[in-house]
């Protein structure tokens, strides 16, 4: 498959009063056309920062993308773009759906104007053509009577509809990559199912690559092709959805999978709860970031960073348990099946 986006050794820091917070530390991944890659992890693990870096939406000088990082989209180096190139890149090549549909639309503009804006800039359409195109987009995202709805303001719409408008804006210029940052977190289950199905339909229709940022493992199991599990600004495990759900090897992935109640499980039995908190990213971190909370922690885990072990073409894990001299441990799956 054709690679559309390549991120290599991405390092992002925030300069705060307390010092430098290294929010993303050495994240690399690739994305092919028509593929869905999910970023999974707790809040503060760098999912959103990684996603925003791709569009260079983080504000300097507070946020700094380190010079050793590399982001290449469709053959173009994103980090070397000037202001004008960046404007052309955003929205046209990569579209983004933001986390909160209630606050990320402009309340003083009609939704139609907000969709038309990018069409007029990127596709150089005149007002009339852009309006027609915007109505078409609204129809595509299943908004009833789009000819009327196009003149509505965001406050006249429900949460699900606003999220659809966000999708329409992001997809208006038919981007190669769509970044969806927690697209359904603020929505109800039935609306969530509608929105996710819609995104998947549009994906197959337009062959868009999708980056899905979420902490909902249920959504991921349903809709992602590949998953990367992030922890404290690093990717600790990556693989196809099947590999992550059925053969994961990292104790953090196990912890995530264990902490969700399953519909088939006994009620009121104790849920697995991961103790402790993620490491303070202000402090230097030269060992495995998960070591302090890991129940399988060995002395080496607190001394050196584990290398990425390759288990298959797609499945890679950064954990010392993968080392040939490490003891064999009882995995999450062995325990569950008991």
């Amino acid at each position, binding site marked *: 498959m054709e690679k559309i986006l390549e991120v290599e050794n991405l390092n992002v820091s925030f300069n705060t009063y307390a010092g430098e917070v290294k929010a993303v530390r050495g994240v690399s991944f690739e994305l092919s056309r028509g593929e869905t890659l999910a970023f999974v992890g707790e809040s503060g693990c760098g999912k959103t920062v990684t996603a925003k870096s791709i569009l260079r939406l983080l504000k300097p000088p507070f946020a700094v993308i380190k010079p050793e990082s590399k982001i290449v989209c469709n053959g173009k180096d994103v980090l070397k773009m000037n202001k004008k190139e960046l404007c052309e890149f955003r929205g046209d090549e990569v579209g983004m759906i933001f986390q909160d549909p209630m606050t990320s639309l402009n309340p003083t503009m009609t939704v139609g104007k907000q969709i038309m804006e990018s069409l007029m800039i990127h596709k150089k359409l005149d007002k009339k053509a852009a309006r027609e195109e915007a109505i078409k987009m609204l129809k595509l995202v299943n908004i009833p009577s789009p000819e009327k709805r196009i003149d509505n303001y965001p406050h006249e719409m429900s949460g*699900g509809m606003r999220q659809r408008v966000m999708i329409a804006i992001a997809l208006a210029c038919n981007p190669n990559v769509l970044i969806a940052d927690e697209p359904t977190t603020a929505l109800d289950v039935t609306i969530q*199912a*509608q929105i996710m199905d819609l995104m998947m339909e549009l994906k197959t229709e337009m062959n868009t690559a999708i980056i899905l940022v979420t902490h909902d*493992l249920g*959504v991921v*199991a349903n809709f992602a092709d590949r998953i990367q599990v992030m922890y404290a600004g690093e990717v600790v495990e990556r693989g196809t959805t099947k590999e992550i759900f059925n053969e994961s090897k990292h104790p953090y992935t196990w912890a995530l999978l264990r902490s969700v*109640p*399953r*519909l088939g499980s006994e009620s*009121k039995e104790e849920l697995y709860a991961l103790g402790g908190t993620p490491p303070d990213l202000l402090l230097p971190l030269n060992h495995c970031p998960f070591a302090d909370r890991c129940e399988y922690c060995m002395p080496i885990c607190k001394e050196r960073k584990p290398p990425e072990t390759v288990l298959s073409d797609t499945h890679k894990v950064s954990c010392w348990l993968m080392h040939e001299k490490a003891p064999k441990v009882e995995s999450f799956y062995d325990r569950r099946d008991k």
Partner: protein
Amino acid sequence: MGEYIVEAKNLCKYFKAGKNQTLKAVDGVNIRLKKGETLGLVGESGCGKTTCGRTLVKLYDATSGTVLFEGKDVSKLHGKELLAFRKDAQIIFQDPYASLDPRMTIGEIITEGMNVHFHMSEKEKEAKVNELLHKVGLNAEYANRFAHELSGGQRQRVGIARALAVEPKFIVCDEPISALDVSIQAQIVNLLIKLQREMGLTYLFISHDLSMVKHISDRVGVMYLGSMVELASNHALYDHPVHPYTQALISAIPEADMDEEGTKKRVHLEGEVPSPINPPAGCRFKARCKYAKEICGQEMPALKEVEPGHFAACHMCGKEDW
């Protein structure tokens, strides 16, 4: 006093919404809670779950219908009796970021209720705060901190400690976990279950996370646009949902499991919840229901017992031809 600690009969709560319009947030709901049980309440946003919970603890006064707490009508309570009710019925709020006073220390927040209900010396209060913080898994030194110094999970624990401080019998948990991360959610739910076992608490657990509700509840009620459409024990509800809305709701839960995903069939629900201002006549779900017949547009279905302990409000339930 009967076996029920809380009993709501034909509970209605209307809000004024502009000129000559009423928003029927809760419309004719019957709820009964046994001592020591957990009733889950699920439904989409805007269906009246929170209003229902708030009316039960008299944060709102019911428009019509009665709420009985330990056999006494809550709306007729005055003076000492009302004070006792306020002590026995507590609520844990949805948003741990907005429900703690930013200008008070955690210790002050927790003792506020105790000052009203108990006569305690400063020393006793301090000991009690330490005990409560310990119970909800926080360090005793947090008593002198402010809410903004704590994380979301820690704040929610403070919210729980505040509710427990006055030794209640009944707690309404209004989406206590929806603002939290998965790993923290598990911690809070475990804590709630543990406290219930130790102290014999009764919970009304409001959430839109259906798998979590199944996990914590004994019985589950499903609400749609202000009325209860199905009520059953949690196994019965999740294994054999009767109402078409419940079926759609349960099939829409994305499960974090690869094996079951392949076999599950999703029932698609088109459209959105109609506005609770002047809701449609007849069955409120009819516009989105694929089984809707003529009768559904004329009469509002009542909650009927389909199986022992399993109630559903649907005209078509139990009939062969759908």
